[in-house]
Each structure stands twice: as C-alpha cells, then as structure tokens.
C-alpha cells in the first residue's frame, strides 16, 4: 500500500518508520527543511521537504496514486486542507486527519474526511474513565456524527440498578447492548439485571442523551431525594 504522510513531527516521524517496517511504500512531506533533512538522514530519501498543503507539491509527492493520505501536522486547518485536497483533487480513496481541537471532529467528518484521530479526545476519555463520573461518558461519535457511543457508570442511586433493560423506557433509536462488569465485557440482554458498579454501553442518537441520562444515572430530582 502507498501511504502519503504529511507532517514530520513526532507523530509523522514514528508513523513513517512503522509503516516502512511493515513493508508499505511511504512518502513523508515536511515543510521545514531542517527537520526534513534530519529525518531523511535517518530513514532515506522518501522525505519531500515541501508543504503538503500545496497542490503542486502534493502532485510531486505522488498524491494521485496514494491509497491513503495521513495528515498529521500540528495544525487542524492544515490537516483539513490536506485531506480535502487529497480526496477531491487527487481522488485518494482514504484520508486520515489528526485533530487537535476535539470541537473540530464533527466539522471534519462532515466535510468528508474519512477518519479522524483526536489525541486530545483520547487522553480526555482516559482521564474521565479514571475518575468517578456521574454523567454519561462519550466514547465516540459514529456515523455522520449523529450517533454517539456512550458509557454510563451505574452508581448506587441509579434508577437502573436492580432492573433489566426491558423494565426501562429506552428512548427510540437507542440501544443498550453491552455491560462491563468487574472488567469483563458481556452482552446486555433485555432481561439482564443491572447492578451497581456496572458500566452500561449504549449507542444512540445525540438527542436521546437526556432521556438516557434520566434512565441510567437519574435526573437531578432523584439525586436530591437520596
């Protein structure tokens, strides 16, 4: 597979090295001449010391025959343009963008970037999973961004504890499909009784969130009552 990597920072550098090791054909574009030379010294002449946002240099790098373009610079706007140019001007099949500002994820997806990797979101998710939360945890946006993968950590006061999904009013367009209990994942069936400490995994439309929150976490009034 021919992969065009744009951005020779830490991510681009290690990505390129790993791809070469796995036997792929790789070209790396890095606009900073010094940085480009430095990488080229180590991994050879597959580094193009030019701006991957410029159509001219993308063409020179062989963008028109790339299977995948990975835009991993530190600037979201650059990554967006690289992916859009790759897709629409060079008909690259798959574009991957690194997104630093999680707020840009939806826009990028909407504008046709095939895959979005957000290190900020990943670290944030990891931190949120470590601290007890009384809210729904967003694991990922799916589809065109209108579906969310959600985790609910059931606390003692949760209205769902001691009940099975069939006893709850699950909003339409939403599915509770798995539970993590004691670190083990298992399917959540309509008659599985949920326990305190369970992590319920659900998928549903963004609008369902409030309803789902009431069913699994409890709303503000129930919290006050206990």
């Amino acid at each position, binding site marked *: 597979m021919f992969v065009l990597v744009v951005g020779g920072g830490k991510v681009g550098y290690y990505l390129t090295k790993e791809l070469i090791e796995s036997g792929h054909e790789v070209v790396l574009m890095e606009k900073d001449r010094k940085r480009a030379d430095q990488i080229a010294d180590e991994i050879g002449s597959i580094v193009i010391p030019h701006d991957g*946002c*410029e*159509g*001219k240099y993308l063409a020179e790098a062989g963008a028109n025959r790339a299977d995948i373009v990975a835009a991993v610079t530190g*600037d*979201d*706007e*650059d990554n*967006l*343009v690289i992916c*859009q*140019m790759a*897709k*629409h*001007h*060079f*008909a690259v099949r798959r574009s991957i963008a690194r997104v630093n*500002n999680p*707020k840009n994820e939806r*826009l990028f*997806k*909407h*504008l*046709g970037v095939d895959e979005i990797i957000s290190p900020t979101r990943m670290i944030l998710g990891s931190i949120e999973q470590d601290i007890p939360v009384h809210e729904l945890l967003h694991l990922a946006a799916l589809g*065109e961004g209108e579906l969310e993968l959600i985790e609910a950590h059931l606390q003692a006061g949760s209205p769902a504890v001691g009940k099975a999904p069939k006893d709850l009013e699950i909003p339409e367009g939403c599915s509770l499909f798995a539970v993590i209990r004691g670190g083990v994942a298992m399917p959540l069936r309509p008659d599985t009784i949920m326990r305190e400490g369970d992590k319920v995994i659900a998928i549903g439309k963004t609008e369902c969130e409030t309803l789902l929150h009431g069913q699994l976490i409890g709303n503000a009034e129930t919290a006050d009552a206990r």
Partner: protein
Amino acid sequence: MKTVIVGCGRVGATLAEIFDKAGHEVIVVDTSTMAFERLPSTFGGSAVRGDGTDEDTLRRAGAEDADVFLALTEGDNRNVMASQVAIEGLAARRVVAKINDPLRAAAYAELGIATLCRTTLMADAVSAWLGEPVSGASGVRSPSGTHHGGEHHDLSETPASEAPDGGQPVTAREA
C-alpha cells in the same frame, strides 16, 4: 448587510472601514488585539479577539447568519477552514476565502467557496501593465461547484487548472 471579516490585516481593515462607512453591520475577528489598531478611530462595528476558525468563537462574536463572510487572514488554510465553518455551521450566505496558492484557490472554488487569489491577481496585474498575456482570472473566483457536506462531487476528472473561471462578482450560494 451583516458582514463578518476574519483577519484584520490591511485588506481586512480596509474592507471593514469601507463597509462600516457604508452603514453596514461589521464584525471583525482577529487573534491579535494589536491588529485592531489598523481600524480607524471612527469604526462603529465590533472587533472581537479570537480564533476565526472556531465555531463557538464566531458564534459568540455574533457571526451567525451573516450576509457576507470574508476570510482574509494570512493563512490560506485558516481561511479555508473559517469559510467552511461559516458555510456549514453559521449559515453564512456569501463567503469569500483568500487563498494565495492558485491550485488550492481553484480547487476550493470547485468545492463551493468563492476564492480570491492574490498570486494570480498580482501576476495578471503586472503582466497586463507590461502588455504581456494574462490568465484573465481577475477578481473573486465564483464557486463553480457546490459543496453539500459529506457528498462531494468528484474533482478527479477535472484538473483544477482547467476549472471554469468566473471572474464575475460573487454570486449568492445556497448553504
């Protein structure tokens, strides 16, 4: 007419002054407050410090539902992104992005953004003055294609260099 200008450089500040004097509502956004010194003391519009590619910032600045949205920072890609945020998220009606790379300017005109390419404009101006042949791509390049979110039309068969050149004033596009 509500006009939002992202990037208060020479061009941005000049247009802000012109539109303000003409009685239009003008909102200028720049990441640096220093840039606002380019605005005349008589400027009656609003100047907001912030990132013009950030939807929330633009919303807070009151950029929603703008009749005209001009992305004029010194970064081509920032202008591209700000324009797309304006079209997709803020329902801006007429959007112009300054893109100095001619290839990128042509490509984005095909994706539905009116583009302004200083490189081509200046090259043409100098050539014309010298009596040499010009590309003819004067003014703002009107969008020659449309952009509907995820469904892009395929540009692979039409190299951007052959894109039909507008050279006409910006025409309204449907967001």
